[in-house]
């Protein structure tokens, strides 16, 4: 059962609706930025001189609100956490860039979003700051094109092998959420003291050397103590429930990846991942020899799934959402492909956690297209083809092609999948000769011989 949200995944199926939603989200965001006083550079920068910590309060209240909200929606099954976009983590670029950002933040008085709010409030400095941002980005573009091409910068800017590092879906996410929430709430007490310590002093006070009034320590009232305790207990209970769920799931499924089979369209033809990798490699070599490929792969996974388990030379379609528009888009795509050659050419649909692929295959077959589904979808591809510890059977390598070992063959295919080149290395020529199946249903779902790829 897939969670109903996010409503429209990033790069989603219905662009107009998606853009409208983006506008509404921005509207709410801008409203609360202004309500926080972020339309004034003076108020924003006062956090850095420790006079007014409201920026900190708003920012971190917002973070813990969203953080807890996301976890609750995820725990009750309303939000599919795997579909939330998380950017790649570049430790050094983000840290150094962040410090630079802080410097500009203090001098300029804004960050990009708050500059927009300041501008619509009539503040000229907001507009000038926005002009500065655009010029700064232009400066970066010039730098990137020139000195930035040097290895040292590229290794700093985007080191190879970087991935998103996030604890969102870890079983211990709740532990982190509780700790962060606690620390943030605790810190609010101390910034209150700091504010008094560094409060703006009048000229009169300075001239007459009047000492600062003693710091007032505010004790939390009964209501806020009870609210804090209740929140803490609720968070803990939800956390225990979540961890329990994760563990019972992993116990139930063991170390196996559960097969992704939809009940209604269970009988659509499937191709196993090992056969498909043979097809993909073979077709890459055919294309390199200026021949038409024997099959096509249409990828209906989300961007995230696609990035973590890429299939080289696949055609990217919008993610499955079961709508008729989606089917129409795929049909158009297939029509163009079929127009290039044999109408009976196999079209392999690769789906991900949405598991809508089997329905799509059924629909395509109704439309007279020789469609089949990658058995096990994205997960199978990842664990059987791309994983480090995937073990390939002997039959997948053609001894005549001069490939030393199965492990080397696996490594080469794997690195080719993640690379940017369209061409597979020559010696990775197909194991045996790939046959074009006359009946797609003859492609066996699992196991040794693997259909057309014998």
């Amino acid at each position, binding site marked *: 059962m897939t969670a109903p949200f*996010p*409503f429209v995944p990033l790069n*989603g199926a219905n662009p107009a609706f*998606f*853009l409208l939603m*983006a*506008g509404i*989200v*921005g*509207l*709410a*965001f*801008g*409203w*609360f930025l202004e*309500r*926080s006083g972020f339309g004034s*550079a*003076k108020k924003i*920068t*006062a956090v*850095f*001189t420790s006079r007014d910590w*409201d920026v900190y*309060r708003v*920012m971190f*209240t*917002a973070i813990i*609100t969203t*953080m807890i*909200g*996301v976890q609750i929606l995820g725990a009750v099954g309303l*939000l599919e956490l795997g579909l*939330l*976009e*998380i950017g*790649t983590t570049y430790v050094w670029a983000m840290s150094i*860039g*962040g410090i630079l*950002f802080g410097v*500009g933040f*203090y*001098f*300029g*008085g804004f960050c*990009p*979003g708050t500059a927009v*709010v300041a501008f619509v*409030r009539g*503040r000229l*400095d907001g507009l000038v*700051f926005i002009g*500065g941002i*655009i*010029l700064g*980005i*232009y400066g970066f573009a010039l730098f*990137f*094109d020139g000195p930035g091409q040097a290895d040292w910068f590229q290794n700093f800017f985007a080191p190879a092998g970087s991935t998103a*590092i996030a604890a969102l879906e870890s079983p211990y996410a709740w532990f982190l959420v509780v700790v962060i929430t606690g620390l943030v709430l605790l810190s609010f007490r101390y910034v209150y003291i700091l504010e008094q310590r560094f409060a703006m002093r009048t000229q009169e006070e300075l001239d007459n050397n009047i000492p600062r009034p003693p710091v007032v320590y505010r004790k939390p009232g009964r209501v806020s103590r009870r609210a804090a305790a209740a929140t803490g207990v609720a968070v803990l209970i939800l956390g225990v429930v979540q961890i329990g769920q994760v563990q019972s799931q992993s116990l139930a499924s063991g170390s196996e990846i559960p097969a992704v089979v939809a009940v209604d369209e269970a009988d659509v033809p499937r191709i196993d991942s090992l056969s498909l990798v043979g097809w993909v490699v073979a077709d890459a070599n055919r294309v390199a020899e200026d021949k038409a490929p024997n099959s096509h792969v249409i990828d209906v996974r989300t961007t995230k799934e696609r990035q973590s388990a890429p299939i080289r030379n696949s055609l990217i379609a919008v993610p499955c959402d079961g709508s008729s528009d989606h089917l129409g888009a795929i049909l158009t795509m297939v029509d163009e492909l079929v127009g290039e050659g044999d109408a009976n050419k196999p079209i392999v649909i690769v789906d991900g956690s949405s598991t809508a692929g089997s329905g799509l295959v059924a629909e395509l077959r109704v439309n007279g297209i020789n469609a089949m589904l990658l058995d096990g979808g994205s997960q199978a591809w990842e664990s059987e083809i791309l994983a480090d510890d995937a073990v390939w059977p002997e039959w997948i390598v053609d001894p005549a092609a001069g490939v030393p070992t199965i492990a080397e063959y696996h490594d080469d295919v794997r690195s080719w999948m993640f690379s940017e080149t369209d061409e597979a290395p020559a010696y990775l020529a197909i194991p045996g000769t790939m046959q074009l199946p006359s009946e797609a249903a003859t492609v066996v779902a699992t196991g040794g011989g693997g259909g057309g790829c014998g």
Partner: protein
Amino acid sequence: MSERGLIKHPIQQRIVHWFNAASFLFLWLTGIAIISNSGYQVGPTFYVNFVNSLFGGATNLLRIHVYVGIFWFVIMVVSFLVDPHGLSLRFLKDLLPTKNDLLWFKERPKAEMDPSTELPDQGAYNAGQKAFGFVVVIGSVVIGTSGLLMWFGTGGGAISRWMVLIHLITVGVVIAFFFVHFSMAALITEERPALVSMIKGDVEEEYAEHHHAEWYREHSEVGEPIAEEERFGLPRAVYGWAKRVVLSLHNAKPQKFGSPYVAGIGLGLAVLFGMVALGHGPGSSGFFSRLGAYGLAEVAPDHVAANSYWGPVLDRGLWDYWLTWAVGGIAIGGFLSALLAGRIKFGIDRGSQISPRARLGLALGGGLIVGFATRLTRGCTSHHISEAALLSLGSWLFLGAVFIGGFATAFAFKKVWR
């Protein structure tokens, strides 16, 4: 002139009226022949053929219709908006509906049966003339705008096709009213002085008193000549209204800020809504990058396309980019909030020891640094607030680094915001 009558329509108004009438007639007569070219026909075939041959074929006919149309629209809009003699402002004021207008519409049909019926007093124009005035003003704007859009959208497209429909329907409505206008002025003897006033400019006192009693009471001396203070009436009036709105916004008493925790929870819920709806919270720096790339590409397309960072951006679109809409939303949301809280203030925020010019310089410099930095960090604060909530390591590093950078700079440069 005052010996003969009261000034009703100064020469400028008469020129515009007859220019408008001549253009309308020409565009109408050529337009009918154009419609006939596309599958269905309004005018009789001999007429269509005659007009087409007169202008040297369908293409030429359409071209002339468009050029004359643009000429008419530009002249009308410019003379109306610039309003050098205050006449369009006067015209608009004369069109304002009054209580008597409703009564006039009720009583006027009775007058056809019974000439002794007393009609309510009317201003410079009676209610029927006002209705025609509205139709002409609104119709001109719609016909001109839709015509221009049809011209720009030559080659099809949904907007262009809708515009054709709107153009034709509006012309139809205007023509229906025009028949009434024309028959009143040209055929009905009793209304003849109105026609004369549009030719010679003045009306007789007796006629004015009877037909435009309210107007007559105010202008019984010489009528309504152009006064010196009416120069550029409409732009001056618009400027006055705009100034009043701006000043009232600027002088509004600002509300105090509420609890930062409430605002923070609201901001967090907005981001959460983004997660639910889009799979991501809002951002903004990506939009500025794209805006810069597209803006510069307007001036120097080759320079941008050759750049390895901005070049690929040009293929991805500006208007169908979600951050464009998110930033638009931020602007509208921020404006509405500031408007309702009385916090719209024109000027600049600065520390007490910094001149306005220095402050703008710092804003530009700070913006430069921030703009550069957002490319390294892959997003601005808004983006990283969203991802910090998703427990992303990079975002927490970014937030920590921003505070370190900010505090260190504040320590070294206290004066900037003192």
